[in-house]
């Protein structure tokens, strides 16, 4: 029994980090929105890590799942706001829609793109993201290029005070919960058959195939899980928090690049890595903009390069090696 529990020890530092962030946000003046930004980066890093970290595939079109997740929340609120008494259910419906829509898109993309490998996979996924955005804009689906602005409808459902509380506080708390869920799912994968299969295919896909592992199945499982999680993160962090969307903003490829930086910085394939990566990335960005507004990127870029050179396996990757054989070993995975 105790060994079963011990398997979940690696969740402790991750959840402790989220708890500390939450407490700082709640108790230190002016820190809530910073905490929200950091948790957002942690959550997208955690979700991306399930695919990139565990399979070694780089999806450059990852932001498409965030975009479609945001649409899930937006469609729920903008279409159901007139139904009296729906209240919080509208958010739950939005969250379910976000999971289903991003999951469905990942099935469609995965069925085609996951047949490809390496650079071909990366290029195909960029195409999917851009193609999907153009489809929405060109075919004028869901408001086309004009997007959806649903702040007014959101206020109509909840009233001014509650709507403000949800979008500036509860949306961020939901993101923390999704980040926690992301960490749990990652660990479950790592501890189970899926994790071993994914590890095998990451190291050598052909060898894994020869050994009888259905690599396509496991890649698709990781892909759908990762996409659904990030869709849910965006539904809360972009949909519920900002209460509007414009296609060119939510399909912005720079978010994919941020996901890659966070995961590689922290350590791909590790549980704590995305959290460490997100904190380093988010905090340096934030403090540099406070200290040197306008010049922060000049300093930020070399910092990232130095970290990547100093920690080629990511910060947690190196840490993992250092704590091997010590009491900390079971906490850092």
């Amino acid at each position, binding site marked *: 029994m105790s060994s079963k529990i011990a398997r979940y020890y690696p969740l402790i530092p991750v959840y402790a980090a989220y708890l500390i962030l939450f407490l700082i946000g709640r108790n230190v003046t002016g820190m809530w929105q910073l905490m929200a*930004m950091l948790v957002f980066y942690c959550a997208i890093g955690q979700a991306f890590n399930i695919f990139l970290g565990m399979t070694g595939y780089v999806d450059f079109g990852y932001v498409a799942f965030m975009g479609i997740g945001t649409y899930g929340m937006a469609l729920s609120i903008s279409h159901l706001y007139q139904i009296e008494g729906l209240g919080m259910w509208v958010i739950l419906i939005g969250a379910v829609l976000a999971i289903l829509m991003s999951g469905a898109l990942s099935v469609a993309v995965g069925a085609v793109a996951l047949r490809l490998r390496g650079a071909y996979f990366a290029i195909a996924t960029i195409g999917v993201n851009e193609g999907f955005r153009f489809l929405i804009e060109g075919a004028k689906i869901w408001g086309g290029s004009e997007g959806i602005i649903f702040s007014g409808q959101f206020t109509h459902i909840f009233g*001014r005070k509650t709507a403000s509380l949800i979008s500036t506080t509860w949306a961020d708390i939901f993101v923390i919960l999704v980040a926690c869920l992301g960490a749990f799912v990652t660990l479950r994968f790592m501890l189970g058959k899926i994790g071993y299969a994914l590890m095998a295919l990451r190291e050598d896909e052909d060898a894994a195939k020869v050994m009888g592992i259905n690599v396509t199945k496991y890649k698709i499982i990781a892909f759908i899980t990762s996409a659904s999680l990030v869709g849910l993160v965006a539904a809360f962090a972009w949909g519920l928090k900002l209460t*509007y969307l414009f296609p060119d903003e939510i399909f912005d490829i720079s978010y994919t690049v941020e996901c890659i930086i966070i995961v590689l910085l922290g350590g791909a394939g590790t549980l704590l890595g995305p959290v460490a990566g997100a904190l380093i990335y988010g905090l340096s960005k934030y403090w540099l903009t406070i200290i040197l507004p306008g010049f922060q990127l000049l300093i930020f870029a070399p910092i990232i390069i130095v970290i990547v050179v100093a920690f080629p396996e990511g910060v947690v990757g190196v840490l993992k090696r250092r704590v091997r054989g010590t009491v900390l070993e079971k906490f850092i995975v």
Partner: protein
Amino acid sequence: MKEYCLKSAIIFMAVFGLLLTTNALAVDKVVLGHPACLSGKFAKAGSQASWGIKACVKWINEVNGGVKIGGKKVPLVYKPYDCESKKEMVTSLIGRLATIEKVHGIIAAYSSGLTLTGAPVAEKYGIPYLSQGGASNRIFQQGFQYAVQVLSPATLYQAGAVDMLRKADPSAKRMALAFEDSEFARMVLRGAEKHAKELGFKIVFNRTYPKHVNDLTPLLSDLKAAKPEIILGGGHFPDGQLFARQMSDLDINVKALSMIVAVTLPAFREALGAKTEGIVGPAQWEFGVKYSPAAAKKVGVPWFGPTNEEFVKLAKEFSGGKTPDYHAAEAGAAPLVFVKAVELANSVEPDKIRAAFNKMDLMTFFGEFKINPDTGLQTRHSMVVVQWQGGKKVIVWPEEAATGKLYYPMPTFAEKAKGKVAVPR
């Protein structure tokens, strides 16, 4: 003795209470925060905005002597952070500005999207929120209580051009609308269509084209077949330039062509040369526009802020000598109207400032300012219309701000190729 003690206690409480109140009211500075887009995709517009704001803050502190509040003048402090044109940074920086910096007003980041991003956070803390680069009307249909628009809304972008063309040619009927498929351009299209119909124009062509378009020939061929007299269109610079070039290639000649964004940029002339002669375009502001204390007096509203010349001179101090464009001007107008609202409210309390905005009707170097009290939408600022005449941009509308007369009808592309310029006699 007992009565004496009671009286003393009452006097002490009253004096102490007064002191407390006075202390609470004492304001030693007014702080204006700004999540500025100094890097990222809006860096160009954001840098211009930053120069414009710094110029006007300097004017307020050095020429106006600060902000008059509670019978004395206190300095205006401008607190910018770089939001990198990113949503997450906008919300976190507004959170910081509201709580740690304790700003009294926030100038929104550039673009309608980022203005919308910051609005819920500004609302949460109840801080007046000035939109200086968010032209979308839809921002002001969401019920935000503290949002105030400084610039003309998107639906009014082509209104001035339509008014001007109606006045220049009461017999013109056939109008074509061809705009880029973007949130902003579609909003402009909608406003232009409504206004043109109200003024008796018949819309003979109404289409949008995709962003990043490389060839407009099919659309322009259809447009030519519709035989319009006037064309309104555009979106951004690349498509605007392509639009005019391919109109010339297909020899589509109309009495007037008015395009948003591209026409106002010097690069438009550099790219197309004489083909630009006679083309008109709306702008939020243009150097040389004749808004002045005298113009304000003429329309019966008070004047506040630097003159156009003073503004440009001050902005150049921060831009390293670069000429400020309309992004700088619309952002520069934000601290001016904010200071006026604080002075009118004689307080830094958000609700009083917001109420003061409702009463304001004034003119600055950027133009007039008056908002819809319920929504915060700008209602009085007028777009200026510029026309390329002999290689120079001339402001031709509105009449009180114009530096020259409209050349109408526009020369044909064949005439322009032979050297005909659109300079009125």
